[in-house]
């Protein structure tokens, strides 16, 4: 296989892999930047995947080709709704945020499978008919070489994800809202003395994280698995969390980390067809993404500093 050939397979699949992780990690950034640990991303993705598939199955006839996009909105809302639970527990009731996140994960899996069995009378849904399909990006795919590698036989959601990453970066670092959100995660008492409603900001952060993770799950379900079962979301939420930390809690960093995961993952699959890697036992290719991540962290990414107030409930008048 030629180098360009390899890239034409590698890049679209990298992008596709990374997309759910990007959305979810961006969500994580909102929550964690506001000071609330969100280990429940996995569960929020589950809700997103579930609701998008259920909606897709029910309304494919109504919305036609627009169905997956509308379903993403539904996933977004459902993710946001479930996240409220995390917000109430960890912000208002001062629950340990990790505990609450773990509960979110258990709850999401239990609830969705319970509902699937209740609704469909079986353990998994049917396959959707209107998923995210392959596209050639208009105009861009005509660019020689680049067009083939990046813009042909690809999907829309990755481009949306990358665009959204920049929007999130803009919101977080250029707008008053972003400044306030970050201040609440770094030093809530300082923010409080500046008249910022810490509780409100944290609620917003957590709910947005749910919405984004919902979209992440919805993208995964509709662009990749095409149905919903217990195995649809199995670890992607944790990978997104890893991407968030890897990317140092920065939206673009998280996007980069997610792309890196996607790349390493795709490489491990494409690898067996690259002459150089042909004779490597498959297990080495299978663990490559994870080993590479650890090496990258150890070698040149180094330590990342979490938002200072991450994980601590804000209690007025305490220090």
């Amino acid at each position, binding site marked *: 296989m030629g180098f360009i050939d390899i890239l034409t397979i590698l890049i679209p699949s990298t992008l596709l892999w990374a997309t759910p992780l990007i959305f979810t990690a961006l969500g994580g950034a909102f929550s964690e930047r506001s000071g609330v640990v969100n280990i429940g991303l996995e569960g929020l993705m589950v809700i997103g995947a579930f609701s998008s598939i259920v909606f897709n199955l029910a309304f494919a006839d109504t919305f036609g080709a627009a169905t997956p996009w509308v379903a993403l909105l539904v996933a977004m809302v459902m993710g946001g709704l479930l996240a409220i639970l995390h917000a109430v527990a960890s912000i208002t009731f001062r629950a340990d945020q990790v505990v609450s996140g773990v509960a979110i994960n258990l709850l999401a899996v239990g609830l969705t499978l319970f509902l699937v069995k209740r609704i469909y009378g079986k*353990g998994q849904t049917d396959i959707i*008919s209107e998923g995210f399909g392959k596209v050639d990006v208009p105009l861009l795919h005509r660019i020689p070489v680049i067009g083939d590698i990046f813009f042909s036989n690809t999907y829309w959601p990755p481009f949306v994800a990358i665009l959204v990453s920049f929007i999130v970066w803009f919101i977080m670092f250029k707008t008053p809202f972003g400044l306030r959100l970050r201040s609440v995660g770094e030093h809530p008492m300082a923010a409080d003395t500046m008249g910022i409603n810490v509780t409100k900001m944290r609620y917003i952060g957590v709910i947005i994280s749910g919405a984004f993770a919902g979209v992440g799950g919805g993208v995964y379900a509709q662009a*990749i698995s095409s149905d919903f079962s217990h195995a649809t979301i199995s670890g992607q939420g944790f990978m997104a969390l890893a991407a968030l930390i890897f990317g140092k809690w920065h939206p673009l960093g998280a996007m980069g980390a997610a792309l890196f995961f996607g790349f390493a993952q*795709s490489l491990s699959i494409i690898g067996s067809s690259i002459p150089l890697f042909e004779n490597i036992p498959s297990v080495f290719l299978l663990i490559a993404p994870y080993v590479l991540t650890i090496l990258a962290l150890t070698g040149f990414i180094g330590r990342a500093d979490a938002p200072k107030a991450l994980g601590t409930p804000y209690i007025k008048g305490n220090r």
Partner: protein
Amino acid sequence: ACGTSEDKEGASSGDGKKEDQFTVAMVTDVGGVDDKSFNQSAWEGLKAFGKENDLEKGKDGFDYLQSQSDADYATNLNKLARQDFDLVYGIGFLMEGAITEIAQQQKDSHFAIVDAVVDQPNVASIMFKEQEASFLAGVTAGLATKTNKIGFIGGMEIPVIERFHAGFIAGVKAVNPDAEIVADYAGAFDKAELGQTIASKMYTQDVDVIFHAAGGTGNGLFKEARDLKEKDPSRELWAIGVDSDQSAEGKVGDHNIILTSALKRVDNAVVDLSTKAKEGNFPGGEQILYGLKEDGVGLAELNDELSNKDEVMKKVDEWKEKITSGDVKVPESIKDAEAFSAN
């Protein structure tokens, strides 16, 4: 659930309220009864058997339990045996250990296991000649391909999948010795994204027919094939399903990208074995092989869009005949398959 002793008595003496009813149940692995694979197929067999014999779903007829993890197999099998089911199936090789153990403890209960061999007097082992089904799939693929490049996606590298793989290679070789076969294992049965990437790679490399034996991972193959077809309906590419007829997964507008499916008729085997047991001929301690001949494996309907459908069908029937008659022995290992030649 009533008291322990009462239940036990029921189990050993075989009387009680279920006296005249032959009851049967199964334990699925984590896949559940709608995994579009052998769990589903087995459950359909149970339902068919139930219908034949006027049984109702439930404790007095036929039922199933789904496992949530490996640790649940034994509990579930035990539970069913304790509920006085006359025959309890364990679906999948993963249950080998659990059945072995429980069969020793519940000597009066009858068990059957699919895809593994358990050497106990009260266990019947159901094995399939997957290679025969995939051989026919290979024949189809070998004749359908235009590019002479054919793909195989395996779930995990385990013996069952290897049999599928071996038969497929042999089948292709039988009708199209020039065709090249590329194979990849995803390392998992439930990772659709892996299947999708592998399929994407293969299709990009000019492969035009891909056969999967990878459970849920295969969903990724179908997704990729559908997406490519949807984008470019004129493109000729195929996917071949496994275990049950997966043609429903292949619809793209007016097209369907599922060429055919290599069937593993767990349902037939279940009905067959249940009937034998009901009639008092439970083949305890035996290993029953279901192949083409026994209707235990087979090939699903060919896709109508296949341009040379009739020719392919003829060839398939020819080879089916050779296999059922015993003229051809389909290799079970990849090594033998590589050496296989059509004469």
